[in-house]
């Protein structure tokens, strides 16, 4: 019981300490993380012995708050605290020369505490609380450098998008509690959690885990410091969506799984293509995160939570080390743009070899950790019922993964980098980085036992393994040679002369993908367009209703005027892209509605009283209708 509290409260206490004393903040955060790590180790050893730690305390009537370290929760808590602790170690070095330390450290410890609470929550209300606190902390962290416009915008974007999707969590949790009569997170099925309830939860997952069409906040979130990205993209934040699916998995009706798999499959392909065409190492990694989380969603849709859990753990280690590696490049080269980074791998050999190891793992090369988890996902895709499209989707996704990683290696290694100053010594950063990489290398030792402790077993299949390996090698080779197209004409020529085969690859592989990506963009625009049309229709209705009391002539003229104005405004909004604009449009239309409300509120008491009487008459009419 003490262990479960230690796991959650140690980082929170560190956060409070940092805000109050403002001294030794980096080390205070590290102490908090270490406390959490110690707590989670205790929980994990207890779980190994089959003991489930539980704690109940105040809450809503009949629905107490409940903390519960089930086997799966203990494993996840351990993964979270290990990764977070070493990211903190790295961050001590990273933040040394950066501004915004106070906000960074207080936010990131709060974030860790919230994540542990989410993992260990044994009832849905506590889960919602943790989910919200984590969202708030992520807002603080992405906006660490709030004086930069980019960072502030990114923080707002992440927050608003997640808020929209969070509505789904509220609805879904309501459905679960009403259907089951209890707020406890149970491992057995509950009757009555309909497809609608599942879809509501899925909406929340899509927001948090950056699934299509909510994927864009994740790449914008790059505006935060690198340790924040490493944390958001690995064991926390985006992982929360998958943890929600894992915790709620027993509740889902079989019909609903299809939708989860569909969302996962679409995300794998679209964001995988985005990653291939990225011009920036961090943006590539961000798109890759969405894509990898798509694998997990698909595995859950296929009915194999074990595969999703394995990939969640493996991906957490791989992606955090990739980000930390990218952060070292950024620190040394002062850029994350591929063009600036080209060839820098030769100079930063240590950072590059770490990056290469984690990248090969992500592509699925044995014996690294990613090979085992990708194998599990492929098997899940192969053995699931509608295997006809699950398996190809996963296989293409694995191929894409290998391409973008291979391309990153190619860019970082090939070419000449400007000899700048000598590499700095970054002891803290390297310590955190190398520890996580050793976990990626040694993953085959602990991945199986971890998943088995959680009460699952990883699915394995030879066909899946062989085809996965084929996709990985083919993709890596393709990526390695397809570095050219991003470069300006001159460099392009230079590369083509050196690697004549690259042109062939460009035509065969790159162009079709480019077309695919364009096509996907068109579909997205079409969808947005339809949403706008529906919104427009409602807005017109609202305007018409609001203007009823005007005199007929004024009404008609006014309508024609506002109608044109509207079309202008809406077409302006439709010209812009992306769901953020859609939200902005929604807000604008709500504000416009508000303006009508304000017109009603004229301040003249006789007019307002007339409105009250209209309201009363309306109420009378409604009631009279009930007698019909």
């Amino acid at each position, binding site marked *: 019981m003490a262990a479960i509290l230690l796991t959650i409260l140690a980082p929170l206490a560190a956060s409070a300490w940092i805000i109050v004393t403002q001294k030794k903040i980096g080390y205070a955060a590290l102490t908090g993380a270490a406390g959490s790590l110690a707590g989670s180790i205790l929980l994990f050893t207890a779980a190994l012995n089959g003991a489930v730690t539980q704690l109940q305390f*105040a*809450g*809503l*009537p009949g629905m*107490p708050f409940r903390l519960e370290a089930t086997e799966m929760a203990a494993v996840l808590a351990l993964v979270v605290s290990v990764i977070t602790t070493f990211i903190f170690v790295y961050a001590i070095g990273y933040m040394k020369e950066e501004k915004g330390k106070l906000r960074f450290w207080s936010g990131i410890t709060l974030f860790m505490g919230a994540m542990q609470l989410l993992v260990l929550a044994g009832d849905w*209300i506590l889960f*919602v*609380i943790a989910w*919200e606190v984590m969202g708030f902390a992520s807002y603080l962290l992405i906006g660490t450098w*709030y004086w930069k416009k980019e960072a*502030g915008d990114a923080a707002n974007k992440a927050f608003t998008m997640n*808020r*929209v999707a969070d*509505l789904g969590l*509220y*609805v879904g949790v*309501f459905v679960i509690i*009403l259907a089951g009569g209890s707020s406890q997170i149970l491992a057995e099925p509950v009757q009555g959690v309909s497809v609608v309830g599942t879809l509501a939860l899925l909406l929340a997952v899509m927001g948090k885990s950056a699934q299509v069409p909510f994927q864009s906040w994740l790449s914008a979130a790059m505006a935060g410091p690198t340790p924040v990205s490493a944390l958001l993209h690995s064991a926390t934040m985006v992982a929360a969506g998958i943890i929600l699916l894992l915790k709620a998995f027993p509740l889902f009706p079989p019909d609903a799984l299809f939708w989860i798999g569909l969302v996962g499959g679409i995300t794998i392909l679209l964001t995988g293509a985005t990653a291939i065409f990225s011009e920036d190492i961090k943006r590539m990694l961000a798109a890759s995160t969405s894509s990898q989380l798509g694998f997990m969603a698909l595995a859950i849709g296929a009915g194999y939570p074990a595969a999703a859990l394995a990939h969640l753990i493996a991906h957490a280690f791989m992606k955090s080390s990739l980000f930390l590696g990218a952060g070292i490049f950024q620190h040394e080269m002062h850029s994350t743009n591929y063009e600036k980074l080209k060839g820098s791998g030769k100079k930063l050999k240590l950072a590059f070899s770490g990056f290469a190891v984690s990248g090969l793992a992500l592509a699925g090369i044995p014996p690294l950790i990613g090979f085992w988890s990708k194998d599990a996902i492929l098997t899940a895709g192969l053995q699931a019922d509608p295997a006809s499209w699950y398996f190809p989707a996963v296989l293409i996704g694995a191929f894409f993964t290998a391409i973008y990683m291979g391309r990153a290696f190619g860019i970082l290694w090939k070419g000449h980098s400007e000899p700048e100053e000598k590499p700095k010594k970054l002891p803290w950063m390297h310590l955190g980085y190398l520890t996580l990489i050793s976990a990626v290398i040694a993953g085959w030792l602990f991945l199986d036992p971890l998943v088995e402790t959680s009460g699952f077993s990883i699915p394995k299949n030879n066909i899946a393994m062989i085809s996965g390996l084929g996709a990985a090698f083919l993709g890596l080779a393709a990526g390695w040679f397809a570095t050219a197209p991003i470069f300006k004409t001159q460099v392009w020529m230079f590369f083509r002369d050196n690697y004549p085969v690259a042109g062939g690859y460009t035509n065969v592989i790159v162009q079709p993908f480019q077309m695919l990506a364009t096509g996907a963009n068109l579909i997205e625009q079409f969808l947005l367009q339809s949403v706008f049309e529906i919104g427009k229709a409602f807005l017109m209705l609202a305007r018409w209703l609001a203007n009823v009391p005007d005199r007929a002539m004024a009404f008609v003229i006014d309508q024609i005027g506002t109608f044109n104005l509207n079309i202008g405004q809406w077409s302006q909004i439709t010209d812009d892209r992306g769901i953020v604009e859609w939200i902005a449009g929604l*807000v604008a239309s*709500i*504000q416009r*509605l*508000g*303006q009508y*409300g*304000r017109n009603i*509120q004229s*301040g003249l*008491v006789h007019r*307002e*009283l007339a*409105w*009250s009487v*209209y*309201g*009363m008459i309306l*109420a*009378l009419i*409604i*009631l*009279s209708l*009930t*007698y019909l």
Partner: protein
Amino acid sequence: MATDLLNISPQLIVLSTTVIVLCLEMARLPRAALWALVVGMLTATGVAVDMLGTDTTAFSTTFRVDALSLWAVIILGPATILFALLGRSELKDSAREGTIYSLMGFSALGAMILAGSGDLMFIVLGLLISTLAGMAMAAHPRNDPSSEGAMKYFIYGSVAGAIMLFGLTFWAGLAGTTLISGINNPDLSSYAVMFGFITLVIGIGYAASLFPVHFWTPDTFEGAPVSIAAYLSVVPKIGALFALAQVVRDLPVSLVDWPLILAVLAALSMTFGNVVALWQDNVIRLLAYSTIAQSGYYLLGVIGVGQSTLAIDSMVVFGVAYLLMNAGAFAITLGEGTRLDDFKGMGKRRPWQAVGMTIFLLSLVGMPPLAGFAGKFLLFGAAIESGYSWLAVVAILNSAISLAVYMRIVVPIFFQEAEDGQIRTYAPGTSFVWISTLALTIAAGIGVQWFLG
């Protein structure tokens, strides 16, 4: 007779306290008047807590002593103290300071009478006592905005009251009684009951600032002193909504489909309040629209009365939560100033108050684990149990809009630089109010289980 008097002892204590307060004001002892009010209200609250669990009536069933009326005392007694302390901070040493305390006492008495109404006459009486005293308080500064606001409150009250009396005459006339337990006879003409019920909703909705009789709210709040606006946003509202719950408790849906009409009004109030609030630049007006929206949420609990086991609990919990978060938000507004610009840079200037204000506003949105979440959660549950799931969905969507409303205050606090200008100070009373309500907002959200027993 003696048991009747014993049963209404909390209300009697409030009455005698208020009379004493009035006498002390006549002797020009405002400080003593405040202390008398504090002691008297605490006593009444204590007696009411002791009586919890009683379920009886007094004076031939015209007054009900039940969970609703006792909880009304327990909520409104401390509420009056909190607002009196705010009033002391704001109006100290002004002429007629003490009258505010006695008027607060009278108005609270009216609200407590409303909450225990067993007879239509008590509803009329309670409404008059609570709103007339409120009007006098709103006019206290005697300048143009306050007189205009008070006048508006008065005119609205007169018209709404007249309509209500007119409608109730038909209803009571047909039923042959003014007892609430007697006006639900299924043999009555439904059209007369319908008309009577609608007019009753108009009269009560006026005190509770429900759409479409909310128009006075922003103007009156803006003109009145901040502490009085805070008072008017809480005390008459809780009394009026509890009275509505007393009426619909015995009203069969077959006679008049009251949940439907309340659901429509709730949806309109929530949406109107939140949407118009998006436009406000004045914090008091913004909070005024927010109280209209919160009244809409509150109706979800009334709809559940008689149909959902959560209904009474939800009304009590939300009442407590609403008092705490609203009093806190108004207290900090009193300390900082009423324009949105006054809040700029507050995060640097006064970090603790800034965090406090953020927590109050998040509680108004309904973020877990704060008091507002517990209240709204129960309200939504009550509506869903009564078969009004669509209304709960509307309410959840409105919560999302309301986040944007309250963020209008949070953003200048943390993300804008302060303007040069005189910095206001916090009087001790104001500090006491916001700190105590902040602690309770957090504690009530976490401890709501023990809170309900």
